[in-house]
Structures are given as C-alpha cells and as structure tokens.
C-alpha cells in the first residue's frame, strides 16, 4: 500500500515545482503523488504519476478525451456535475476518479451512482482543500457532502481517494494532519488508510480471475 495524495497541481498551475512538492510530500509522510499535467517520474523517492483533470467539458468532448487518454498510464479525474452527468461519467471506461462532489448539487451523487462506481471501480475523491481553506457554511456543506458519500461508501464499497488539491507546498498537509481532518467527517484510521491506497485499487489491472468465454 502506497500512501498517495490523489491530486496536486505543480507549476505552472501552482507555485511549486513537482520536485519540490515531491520533497515536501516525503517529509509529510507520503509515498506517491498524482500530479496534474506532469510527466511521470520519481523524485526524492516519491513516485509521481500523471494526473488528468477534466472539468467544464460537454459529455461528448469528455468521451473523446477519455478515449484518447485510455492507453496512457495517467489517472483520469473528472469534475462532478449534475446527477445524470455523474452517472454517465462513472459508466465511462477509462475514468478513474470523480472529484469535486463537495461542490456539486446535493443529489449529484446518489445511491445509483454509488452502485455504478463500485461496479466500475471509479473512486470518489475527498478533496480536503475546502476543509482546510474554507470557513463557515462552505466548509459545513463540504463536510455534509463527504459524510453523505461515506454513508454510501459503507453500503456499496466503492473506492475512495484523498487529495489535498495543493497548488503550493503550503497547501500540502501531513498524513497525520489529513487523518485528523478526515476524523471531522467521521473517518477512523483504517478508513483513512484505505482511502490513501485508493489509487492502487483504481489503477490495478482489471483482468478478472475467471473469464466467461461463452
């Protein structure tokens, strides 16, 4: 199990280079980073995977984009939209993570979407940036969405990932701090450990143990 931050945004999206983020991640206790629009590599002992974030894209364009990225080893994340959009995205082969449910509508991720996510091994990302930076009603709403997603996760067992969505090293948080933040939304230590290894689950090859040939 590799402790993974499922989304960071290094330079030029942010103000820190991917090497510096990797160095910081090592000091904070991580083993792997998924860095948006960054070639894969290993820096200071930290594995850096390519991440692709697709947002504000019509479904037709999104399908084409996902098809293009299917053979690359990138971790494809799609920003959540309304309920119909999310169901369509989850059923797409090649999408690994649906993110931003804290900013989506209340019913955007329901029990049907949760069931589909579990069947298609699409992870739901818990983006902790709002818990860190937001105050008041915005943070409360984000906590509520996460708690709602966790209830569905306990029932349907779809993968979870945890991301800091850090654009700077100052937005990154230590594993222990993230565990503390996750305790605010009702996650205990085994839950957090499982979510940290969510990227392992979604990127593992999906070859079934038994193949039906007739």
């Amino acid at each position, binding site marked *: 199990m590799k402790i993974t931050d499922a989304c960071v945004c290094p330079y030029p999206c942010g103000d820190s280079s991917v090497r510096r983020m990797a160095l910081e991640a090592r000091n904070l206790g991580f083993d792997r980073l998924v860095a948006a629009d960054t070639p894969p590599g290993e820096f200071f002992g930290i594995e850096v995977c390519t991440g692709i974030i697709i947002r504000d894209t019509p479904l037709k364009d999104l399908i084409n984009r996902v098809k293009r990225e299917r053979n690359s080893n990138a971790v494809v994340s799609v920003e959540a939209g309304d309920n119909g959009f999310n169901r369509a995205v989850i059923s797409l082969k090649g999408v690994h993570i649906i993110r931003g449910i804290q900013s989506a509508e209340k019913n955007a991720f329901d029990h049907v979407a949760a069931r589909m996510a579990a069947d298609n091994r699409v992870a739901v990302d818990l983006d902790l940036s709002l818990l860190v930076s937001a105050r008041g009603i915005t943070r409360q709403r984000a906590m509520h969405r996460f708690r709602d997603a966790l209830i569905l996760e306990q029932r349907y067992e779809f993968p979870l990932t945890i991301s800091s969505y850090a654009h*700077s090293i*100052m937005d990154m948080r230590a594993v222990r*701090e993230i565990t*503390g933040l996750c305790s605010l939304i009702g996650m205990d230590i085994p839950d957090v450990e499982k979510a940290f290894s969510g990227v392992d689950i979604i990127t593992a090859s999906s070859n079934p143990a038994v193949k039906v040939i007739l």
Partner: protein
Amino acid sequence: MSTRPPTLREKRRYLLVSVEPAGTPVNQKDLYYTIADATTSLWGDVMAAVVMPAVVAAEGRFVVIRCRRGTERELAIALSTITKCRDVRIALRLVAVSGTIESLRERIRTVKTPDTEDSVPSECTFKKTPVSITQCDGQKVDVIEKGFKNTNRLFLTREDLEEL
C-alpha cells in the same frame, strides 16, 4: 493574587510548530489571533474555551503554542486549517508535543541547521525567467520572480534551477 499550588493548576501541553515558508516573519500577537480564529471557526466557542490556545514563544521559524492537556488533537487539527496570517500565506507544521517548554527548546536546538556549504548564486533563471533566491535550505530553494508584474514566490529545488 497568589499563585495556586502545582496540584491545583490546570495541566497544559505545548506544541512545537514550524512556520512555512521558512524566513516568514511571524508576529506572535497576529499568530495568536489567527490560531484563535481557526480554533473558533472549526470547533466553536465552547471548544475554543476548553482548548485555550496561546502562543508562548517564537524562536526563528519555530513557534511554541500552549493548550490545555487533552485538547492537543483538536488544536492540531485547527492548526492544519490555517492558511494565512494577516494576509501572508503560511502553513504551520506540527513538529512535537510536550509537557514542558524546555523540552521543546531542547528539540529546537537539536534540529539540524541548514547546510550552507554548497550555496547557490543569489540570481538564477527558472523556465527562462530571471529569479532572485530568497531562501535556500538544503535541496529547497525559494525564489521570487523578477519584474514589476507577477513577482510571485516560487518553491523549487536546486535541480529545477540547474536544469535551465
């Protein structure tokens, strides 16, 4: 008012935190208000009154924060939600928790000082942009873009500068 005997005093814990980015000047009073605001915002007035956070010392890039014993976890979570102090972007990294300030001071003394033997020049380029180096600590190099516009602080490593 006479001081209470030790057995009647409330027990306290002290958190040693480092302020990122290195070299950021921290005013103790501003930091206290920032921590109090973060604690109140996250846990509410009732819990903030129980935690009773206070900044007791600031030594270099380290700050010692006091809280009531048993509330270290709550304070640590609240500290992780701090992103700004008086409009200056900062991050507080928890280094250690102790029952005495002296043991934290000992801890500060044992922290390795930055290696300055292999120093980098004060001016470099990054992605063809001239930058001036503000902070250098081992592999970590903080730079500021030169110019009138977009003079942002960038967080790089030595390799990033050597590369270009």
